[in-house]
């Protein structure tokens, strides 16, 4: 299964870094779509088949938590796995992540950490990931 992934982050540089990390992660990738805030993210989700959302928290217009709440409220999108990618931390964020059934990865992260989190929340098998992998391990992280 090739994953169609939506990356939601107000930083164009961070979105580019995540794309680059995904491309070397060895995960089976389909389309990689991008949005600069939660509102844009919801519009893309409404028009495309999305297998996974990677979302920042602090964004203008609509933040990551608000976007995930909207995703969970809609029966058409409630099933979509979401991984929060943030430099923030703390108990309140952990509680929100758990309440929304999302995963969490702290910036900066390595390609292995990102791949492992995605495998965990999407159910893509390790075997599928490694079959697609040209990734050789250490020495490269974000």
């Amino acid at each position, binding site marked *: 299964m090739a994953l169609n992934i939506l990356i939601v982050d107000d930083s164009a540089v961070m979105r580019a870094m995540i794309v680059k990390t995904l491309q070397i992660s060895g995960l089976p990738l389909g389309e990689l779509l991008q949005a600069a805030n939660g509102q844009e993210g919801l519009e893309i989700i409404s028009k495309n088949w999305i297998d996974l959302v990677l979302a920042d928290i602090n964004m203008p217009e609509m933040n990551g938590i608000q976007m995930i709440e909207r995703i969970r409220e809609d029966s058409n999108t409630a099933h979509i796995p979401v991984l929060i990618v943030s*430099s*923030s931390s703390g108990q309140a964020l952990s509680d929100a992540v758990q309440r929304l059934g999302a995963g969490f990865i702290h910036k900066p992260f390595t390609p292995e950490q990102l791949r492992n989190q995605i495998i965990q929340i999407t159910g893509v098998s390790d075997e599928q990931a490694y079959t697609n992998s040209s990734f050789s391990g250490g020495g490269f992280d974000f």
Partner: protein
Amino acid sequence: MNKRIQTALSQAAVSTFESMGFLLPTRELDERQLKAPAEASVTVAFHGPVHGALQVRTFGRLLPVLTANMMGLMEAPSAQLQQDALGEIANVICGHIVTFLTEPDAVYSLDSPKVSGPAAAPGKEDGSLEAQVQLGIEDGRTVVELRIFEGTLAP
């Protein structure tokens, strides 16, 4: 300055420039790095049990290299993307250092990074300076400062 936070800030700044920018900061600077002209400045304010701000200033021509490395490009990206890249660096360092200020599980919110003039050094009115790190990078340098406006740090 607070020695515990100073050490944590130094480690956070070095690892962030290494892991996100593929640059190798040094704690000892040469004459050329010390004389490099101001290039850019970004501040991230944080709010929680302690309120304050983290500022990252760069000197020399670091941003084109930093941004190209972060984005995996061969050529220097636009000035806007360069500011964006420095903002992300500041955001990640700030997200890391706030966990050292009070209890590790304390809740902090970070504002979006704000770009200021290249030579915008903070003054006394900008809070008390708790930690400052200067690192040599390529032909330039970076100065990272943590200031507290309100609240009490953990001992």
